[in-house]
């Protein structure tokens, strides 16, 4: 669906919509897991910004072979492979933190955790 060049910049705009929706979830929602899902969507959408322009219509996947002479651009693929790995690494760490926050604060809603954090700051004896 994305490959149809309805307009010259159609693919960019789809990418932008997805990115911004992800970003909105990160900022607006208070549930910590939901924030991480939003973050993942935000990151995933950036992949399209790189990959879509690398496509050449009539080209093929960048694996050299005698039958083809036009290939889509391999460099964005390499960069995005790295970005995917970084994304999952961030997600794993984020979830580990959420689990610890749940165990320590018994909540994963940002506002409730914040109240507890301020409570700790006031009483100056945050438990470990």
């Amino acid at each position, binding site marked *: 669906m994305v490959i149809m060049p309805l307009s010259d*910049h159609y693919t960019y705009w789809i990418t932008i919509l997805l990115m911004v929706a992800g970003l909105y979830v990160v900022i607006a929602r208070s549930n910590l897991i939901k924030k991480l899902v*939003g973050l993942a*969507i935000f990151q995933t959408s950036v*992949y399209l910004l790189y990959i879509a322009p690398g496509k050449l219509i009539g080209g093929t996947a960048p694996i050299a072979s005698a039958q083809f002479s036009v290939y889509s651009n391999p460099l964005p693929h390499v960069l995005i492979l790295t970005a995917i790995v970084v994304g999952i690494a961030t997600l794993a760490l984020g979830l580990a933190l959420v*689990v610890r926050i749940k165990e320590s604060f018994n909540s994963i809603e940002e506002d409730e955790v914040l109240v507890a954090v301020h409570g700790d700051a006031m009483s100056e004896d945050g438990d470990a």
Partner: protein
Amino acid sequence: MMALLVLSVVVQRNLFVVVVLSGIYSFLMATVLVALDAVDVAMTEAAVGAGISTVLLLSAIHLAGAEESRPLRYRLPALLVSIGVAAALVYGSLGLPRFSDPAAPIHTHVVPRYIQDGPRETGVPNMVTFVLASYRGYDTFGETTVVFTAGIGVIALLRGRRKKKQSEANAEIRHDA
């Protein structure tokens, strides 16, 4: 369709549903990536986005609870930030090369050498593989280190240190210390 999915992620409050939706989102993304000739990326996105992330998110939900207790609120500042970001992106994208323009800089600079000489210089036909492991092998070294960092980070955060009542699990964790 992807946009619809993302919108339902925004609205949906049951985290379990959100996770499943984001898994489907990744899967759709992988399909799009195949259409864009990025087969290696598609394979990884399917394995990571639809596979590992989903498993991780589900186990985290299992540990931390599945229902978002806050009702949906439309927060003006967040909306404004998002709109601002979107505006900047659209503004920037207007000056970008057309879709599938063979004369775009990314197709005329740096990459031609990979495509023309790479298979001969490295003896490997998959361009993604040799750019990844050789020309830009140092990025991949960094990437491996990122994975390693995340691994020991998760250990440092989640090993041991549980409440006493779970001593059975504790004993289990001891033998890796």
